[in-house]
């Protein structure tokens, strides 16, 4: 993937993707030659965990996995005391449109490993896991190979770099469920249980994996840590905006000419990313709508292209930065098709534990199918909007909201198109014989 950093017209240095395509970067040798593990050495030689924490806090680094919570603050929640503490790297990357962690792990696995060791040191964790989505077989293999190298060099395990610090690190592959990227669902899955979210509180920092204190961060968040040590937290904070510091990997996909991952300075105008870097929609097409932060983010329209790409500006525009994945939909695509595809994904991925998400996603899909088949009326759009409102804020985890927010925003912003779609489909299918297929009998039960 091509990598570029853009900042308000000026070009700034890439941080994560600097030389990412260098041949052999995934090996310890090349990574080290380029200065890899120097940050770790500096940390273990000269810094206390509190020093590291102070740098993380000074950097202002916000989580790159979706919620944008300050990493330094999360580390500071880890309780003191002698016990097993855990660090988990969330590499489940299942949010539709998101593929940045994959490139990072594939091309520079040691950057992640180094970041994890430093983060574990700061958090007082002695056991670490990389929970990687099952489909990322190749990346898991690369990480495993890198881990073997790191262990052989005394970078992971007991007495790391001859210090007193000890850390075990295990790569664990998931089995293909979006919900296992939600941090507490991930914990259950890692413990070998069905991947269902847990009630919070207790938060993972207090009672996480095996009831122990646990720090969970996204791949990109952790991979940034060595750079913060190298640059110094204050220096890192100078990149980006005041409340959205640093650079962000953005996966751009959909109707653009140059889809891919781009590293941008936070605060870059969105138009610059979508048009400048990704080349915008094909000739003659315009942006109808776009998801700024993965499929869970409320959609923005062509009118919002000048919103700066950072956490707060996007929130102010009614959406979110989320996982940092821009999906562009141009005017050739019916909004109903987008909504249906999306709703089906969430219906399929809902864990089914809590009522509003389980029932609301299924209901929404049924309604959208009727809209698509001309079996709906505009009143159904009101019901659909209301169902989304009934989901938002009422679920156990935010998967339900992750469907309801974008669907709600689509219905609100493209109501005319939905109504026109219904009209057109009704004309096409006047007798309703193009029926959405009802669910078949789902299971043949146990003993009769």
């Amino acid at each position, binding site marked *: 993937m091509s990598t570029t950093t853009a900042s308000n017209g000026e070009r700034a240095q890439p941080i994560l993707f600097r030389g990412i395509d260098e041949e052999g970067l995934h090996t310890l040798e090349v990574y080290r030659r380029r200065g890899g593990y120097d940050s770790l050495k500096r940390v273990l030689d000269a810094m206390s965990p509190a020093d590291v924490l102070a740098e993380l806090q000074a950097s202002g680094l916000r989580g790159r996995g979706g919620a944008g919570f300050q990493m330094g603050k999360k580390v500071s929640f880890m309780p003191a005391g002698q016990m097993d503490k855990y660090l988990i790297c969330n590499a489940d990357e299942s949010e539709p449109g998101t593929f940045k962690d994959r490139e990072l792990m594939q091309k520079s696995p040691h950057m992640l490993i180094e970041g994890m060791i430093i983060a574990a040191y700061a958090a007082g964790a002695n056991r670490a896991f990389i929970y990687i989505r099952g489909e990322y077989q190749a990346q898991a293999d690369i990480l495993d190979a890198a881990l073997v190298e790191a262990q052989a060099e005394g970078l992971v395990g007991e007495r790391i770099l001859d210090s007193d610090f000890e850390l075990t690190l295990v790569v664990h592959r998931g089995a293909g*469920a979006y*919900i296992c990227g939600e941090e507490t669902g991930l914990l259950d899955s890692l413990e070998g249980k*069905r991947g269902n979210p847990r*009630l919070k509180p207790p938060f993972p920092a207090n009672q996480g994996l095996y009831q122990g204190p646990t720090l969970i961060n996204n791949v990109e968040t952790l991979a940034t840590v060595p750079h913060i040590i190298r640059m110094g937290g204050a220096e890192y904070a100078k990149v980006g905006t005041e409340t959205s510091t640093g650079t962000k990997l953005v996966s751009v996909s959909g109707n653009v000419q140059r889809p891919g991952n781009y590293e941008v300075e936070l605060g870059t105008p969105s138009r610059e990313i979508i048009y400048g870097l990704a080349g915008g929609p094909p000739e003659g097409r315009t942006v109808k709508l776009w998801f700024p932060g993965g499929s869970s983010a409320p959609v923005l329209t062509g009118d919002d292209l000048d919103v700066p790409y950072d956490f707060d500006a996007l929130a102010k525009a009614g959406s979110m930065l989320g996982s940092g994945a821009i999906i562009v939909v141009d005017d050739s695509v019916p909004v109903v098709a987008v909504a249906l595809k999306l709703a089906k994904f969430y*219906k*399929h*991925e*809902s*864990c*089914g*534990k*809590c*009522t*509003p998400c*389980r*029932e*609301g*996603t*299924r*209901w929404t899909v*049924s*309604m959208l199918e*009727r809209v698509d088949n001309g079996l709906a009326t505009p009143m159904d759009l009101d*019901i659909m909007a209301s169902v989304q409102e*009934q989901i938002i*804020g*009422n*679920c*156990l985890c935010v998967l339900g909201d992750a469907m309801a927010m974008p669907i709600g925003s689509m219905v609100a912003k493209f109501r005319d198109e939905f109504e026109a779609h219904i009209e057109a489909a009704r004309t096409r299918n006047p007798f309703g014989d193009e029926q959405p297929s*009802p*669910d*078949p*009998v*789902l*299971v*043949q*039960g*146990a*003993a*009769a």
Partner: protein
Amino acid sequence: MPRPEIHMITFTVDGREVRAPENAMLVDAAKLGDVEIPVFCYEPKLGQPVGACRMCLVEIEGIPKLQTGCSTPVKDGMVVITQSERVKEAQEAIVEFLLVNHPLDCPVCDKGGECPLQDISFGWGGGRSRFIEPKRHFEKPLALSPLIAIDRERCILCYRCVRFSQEISEDYQLILAERSADTYVSTFDGHPYVAPFSGNIIELCPVGALTSQPYRFRARPWDIEGAGSVCTLCPAQCNVELTVRDERVLRVLARQHPGVDDGWLCDKGRFAYQSVHVDERITRPMVREGGELRPVSWERALDEAAGALGRAGAQSAVLAGGGATNEEGYLLQRLAREAVGTPHVDSRAGGGPGRELAAALGAPALQATVPDLEHAHAVLVLETEPVDDMPIVDLRIRKGVRRNRVRLAVATPRPSSLDRNADVSVRYAPGCGEAFVAALSAMLGGEGKNVDELASSAGTTVEALRGVTGVLRGVEVGEGATGSDEAGPRDIVILWGERLTQGRRGAAAARGLLNVAARLRLGGREGAGLLEVPVAANGRGLREAGVLHDAGPGLSEPPHGEMAAIDGLELPDGLARGDLTTLLLWDAEVDAATLAAAGTVIAHAAFLTDALRAHATVVLPAESYAEKEGTVTHPDGRVQRLRPAIGRQGGVRPGWQVLADLMARVGATQDPADPGAGDPRVLTGPMASRQLFEAVPVYAGLTLEELGGRGVRWPAREQAAAWPRADAGPFGLEVPPGPVKANGDLRLGTFRSIWAGPEVGHSPALRFLVPKPRVEMAPADAQRRNVTQGDHVTVGHNGAALHATVVLRDAVPRGTVFVETDALRAGPVDVRKAPPRAGPPAPDPAEAPS
């Protein structure tokens, strides 16, 4: 872990100030202010809330999002709103969501009329539906097991049943399969959910998704009445509510007593009510005529019985057992001692320690309660398998270990289902409980040199013992626990099986146990002590009522002075010697050989066994517990009240009345001059209770009203001071005879499964669980004898032999085999392949878990 202290705080709910215990969940705290927050998935019995259904959303001042009241602990000054527009909208939304896929087939649903989903839809729902899509469909109903039907369309996925299976009974069978709206409750591979406590999920289910197969379509809530009583099918004496329609018991539900059952029932207690109404039940008196038992009038049967007892006098023996009430026990020993004039009275067919030791073991200061099991620092399970012997206590132990990190040691001859939960499990040779407690006592007392010898005579090791003392003293296992208890006394509960003190050396074993208790300083310590698992359901009550060969009511000196009484253990010998000729069995079972040796057998029983059919002279029909009134005493000393739920079936008469009649009749024959001589003056059940309370000093002043629905633990009453003083050790202990070295080098251990007992066999729904005779053995032992899993073998023992099927169990110690039987006693045994039988072997019933 000691019980947590409770601080009261003040919070506001819907404008009212309410005092509540800090950290109570909002839904519970709100109740204290008469505010109801609807819930589906919340059930505190199941442990931590899961927050799945979202029905309980409320507004809390200062928190922007609505919060689940079931998982939010209340804090001082919290302001909670359950009546705002926002909350109302959320509640209506959840009800609407729950109903979109719900079939609403209430007219044909067993739950209709007592359905939380109906109630909450009515109370909190919007009353309309906007859902016009096709609903989710499942095949329905299906048999989740022979006892439970599942209708997956009605399931609201509240997780209760699955949590029960995973976290309460820990049978780990129920799971949720698939995800999203396709999620359904199932066992992993679709096998039937058969487990000792499975029926609880029916009661837990907030909808009609899980229904009782035997109860299905039998009644509607407006057809039935609930009657509270106590289940007397085992010593756990769970509090139950019997569902009655037209004088028939149709269902048994838990009546939730935290001091007794924690709101659970085992499947025996839940389904064996069926045996109340089966045709096999004896409902008329019978007398043997022409070699056969024939129905006769009560007058005739009572005359025959009274005549036989009166004639035999001191050559009669009386044995009580099972669920006989305290009143029956009291009247029975009066009948024997006052009217018949015989000292041979007992309630322990297996014998046991004498009066003094029994008093020491039952001393109020040494009694632990059932809830103590859950809050103790450590629990020792000794010579009992709770799930078989007193099932509901098994759940209590699991709860303590899981939630309060109670440390658990298990010491039994047979592998225990609690081994997985235990910090330490030790095995000793069957029948060597005495040596084991002696060794444990020596270990605790730091008598190093004795320990070796005692351990080996118990068939165990010093390391194993050290593990147990380590758990009890709170030393890390493996750290080499010493005999000292520097850390001071701890809350330790020893749950011990009466089997330990049975047999000829029962007294020595009792002394050993008392020594252990003394060395752990359990006496007088709140939250610590002994908790016995008696063999008979009302074993404790019968003893306290005076049904002991050497003790009268309240373990007083028996009235018969120097006359030596024959106890239950010696009964067969007494009959063989001819010292005894006539036997009155009151809900007690003895083997056929013993019956055959008696000239006259008068049996008060609910079912005819083969032995009774062959040997009984007079049979008096016994009440089922659903028909009984009176009291029973729980092993932890709680006197509980039985109340009749239905009228007596057929010609069945109350036990107290039968005994009073017998006394009057025997009395009249003894002294023709005074026809009223023997009359005990008991005209009603409550009169019998009153006599009992007057006669047993520690029950003095109790009234049936006071017992009410919750019972009263007498050891906690002032009157407990009247308990006979007894020496509670330490005693000097001898080295008991070592484990029997068998010629065939196999030792026999016996056990009794939860599914044993006539009530299970006579309940159609439970019959499939009746265990087939099986012999459990270690694979290596089986291999050496050339037998393997499923083989038919004979298990021989002193000439006696029984047929059984081999079950290989890795956990069975080598050199030992276990057979479920009351017929053989521990001892050397031989296992041989049985000659092939004609026809295919009967298929094993669904593996009865034990």
